[in-house]
């Protein structure tokens, strides 16, 4: 079996498994997995920029929130149906990520991290500033009637799960196609040695900008879908912790691997869910787990598997 066939079999197999799981999972885990798939899509978006292009962003909450608020405001105040709402969310994410990319990519390294962090903080404060529309920190609820897509009620567990799976499949397959295409190879080349890529004649700025926009758009799409599936749009999702979460999920799962973001999100979700049932210091547990993983699996869970067993993993 060629590496390409193995790759398709593994990723297709995961999607089939996720599809099948909805029929056997208990209600609680069924709901959790739907949520995890949407959050993992956010992490998949983050991974395009961090894992494949080597751009460490500390401001991805901005993109997630841009999609969420683009959709939410269009539905809540514009009376938009879910599909135009999602398109509005995607448009907002494209616009915000392009603007941020154009400005932030003038910096690099630590400065890039700081600039993205500052932009995200400005985005958070913008949400609070326009409290008359956003209800600030309290956020607003999307009612069940506003969440019916082509006659399909997204508040129902089965449709929610299927919608989350569809989003996740689209994000994974897009990323897979991206990293296997010449465009993705150039992104990896930039990550490995930017100067060499430039010397080879690639317009590095253009490629990095494209990576920021693709990453921001996937993250924004995840934000829009999250708001639609779970019925709430709030400023918390624009706060700094939602910039840190995708970084942690990707680091845990394996930066620069297509499946890493999903595994990292799944691991972190259940680590917090299970440890919070035992102790109020559950973030300490999460911290210790992170330290241990950094020490003993620095490539992340999937990254280690790639290093040790399946070297063909994309």
């Amino acid at each position, binding site marked *: 079996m060629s590496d390409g066939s193995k790759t398709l079999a593994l990723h297709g197999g995961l999607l089939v498994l996720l599809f099948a799981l909805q029929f056997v999972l208990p209600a609680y885990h069924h709901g*959790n997995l739907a949520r995890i798939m949407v959050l993992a899509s956010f992490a998949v978006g983050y991974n395009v920029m961090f894992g494949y292009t080597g751009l460490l962003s500390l401001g991805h909450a901005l993109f997630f929130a841009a999609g969420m608020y683009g959709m939410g405001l269009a539905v809540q105040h514009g009376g938009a149906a879910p599909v135009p709402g999602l398109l509005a969310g995607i448009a907002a994410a494209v616009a915000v990520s392009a603007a941020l990319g154009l400005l932030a990519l003038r910096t690099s390294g630590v400065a890039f991290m700081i600039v993205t962090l500052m932009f995200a903080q400005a985005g958070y404060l913008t949400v609070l500033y326009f*409290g008359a529309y956003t209800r600030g*920190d*309290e956020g*607003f609820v999307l009612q069940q009637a506003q969440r019916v897509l082509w006659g399909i009620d997204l508040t129902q567990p089965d449709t929610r799960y299927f919608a989350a799976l569809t989003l996740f499949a689209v994000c994974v397959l897009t990323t897979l196609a991206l990293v296997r295409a010449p465009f993705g190879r150039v992104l990896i080349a930039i990550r490995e040695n930017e100067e060499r890529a430039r010397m080879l004649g690639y317009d590095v700025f253009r490629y990095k900008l494209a990576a920021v926009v693709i990453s921001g758009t996937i993250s924004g799409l995840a934000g829009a879908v999250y708001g639609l599936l779970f*019925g709430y749009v709030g400023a*918390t999702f624009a706060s700094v912790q939602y910039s840190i979460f995708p970084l942690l999920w990707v680091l845990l799962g394996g930066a620069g691997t297509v499946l890493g973001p999903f595994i990292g999100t799944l691991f972190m979700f259940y680590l917090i*869910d299970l440890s919070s049932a035992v102790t109020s210091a*559950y973030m300490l547990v999460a911290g210790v787990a992170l330290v241990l993983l950094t020490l003993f699996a620095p490539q992340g869970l999937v990254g280690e598997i790639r290093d040790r067993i399946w070297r063909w993993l994309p």
Partner: protein
Amino acid sequence: MTTRTTKQTGTTRRGALKTLAAGAAATSLPLWARYAEAQTSEPIRVGFQMHRTGIGAAYGRWYGRTTEAAARLINEAGGINGRPLEIVVEDDGTDPKRGAEVVEKFATQHNCDVGYGTLFSHVVAGSAPRAGELKLPYFVVSEGHHVASGALNRYTVQPGITDVKSQVQAMAPFVAANLGKKVTMIFPDYAFGHDHRDFFSAAIEAQGGEVVAKLAIPPTETSFTKYFPKIPRETEVIYHVMVGPAVLTFVKEMGEFFGPSRPEIFGFIDSLEAVDISSPGLEFLEGTYFWEGMPRYAQADQSPYDKFYREQVGVDDKGASLSDAKDVSTFAHMFGCWETLYVIKAGMEAAGYKGPQDRQALIEAVEAMTEMPHSNEHPQGAKVFNGKTHQVFGPQYISKLEGGMLKVQHTTSIEEGFYPDEVDYTKMSF
């Protein structure tokens, strides 16, 4: 004979089988009995969405203690419909995303009958949609206007604490009549502060007063000196509703700015919940007025219900823990947990609640409630519940800080907090 013997033998075998069957039945009988018993004595599970960590942790700690005390009393008095009450606690980290997950956990993993106890408005807003979808009655103790505004759903109810719109509206007549009519408002620049800004502006205008300046403080601010010069000279009353750890700095800097001559000052005790009023830096608040949901200090005319409530929760006459005088309670809010648990009990009894199939009946029973007399079950004061808006109304207390103690100056009537209905949840489907 043979036949008989055979018959006898057969009979014996059958008899033995019968005996075995009877024995097996007898052996299993206690199991059935236990099962039947379990069905009737299975606890009523109340999922307590607790702010154990995060920004709401101080409130969460005291909401927890109040809940424990009320649950203990309810169980000592025979439980609910003859079944014990079990409180299932999950920490939501004062986070709306985790809040929604916790609600899912209550409904689908812990098999809770209801969800309960959420304070912070953003957690309520994040969690309520899931409660509605899972058809889990969700009793919040938030004082947010989100329930009565119609933003939520039929399964979300706030029967134990009044909402901010009602509180602010009830305060305005006292402020206008006793402190002044030209008000400068200082409030945090987010939804909680905006509610105060909007509701109080309308309420004071209805009293013939006006808000002469509205100073919104960004949530990231740590020093406030640049805002005080913006207070107009004509200001007769400063209305402040700062929350969070910066409040001590805010008060200290306000004191330094005004010195001995200051306008009247009226604030919401939310700023100083779980904070010792005699903390260094708060001296400037002496002689100023506060809204209190329930008076922190036991008053000269303390009701027997207040006394009973303090004893049961473990709070002294100064609103601090009986076991640690430095551990000051969130007294102005936590009564809401106590009263809400008793509303859940009353609702379940009225609905003949047996299990999740009766959740709809429970909501209808609560919607049918109207008057709640001042009692051990409602120690903060008498209440009137509006079934259409799912919101309770009650008295408010205005206290003055004198000699380091908050003394009640005025108690508003329940009616002063009424406003026209903004929603009729009873017309929404289940």
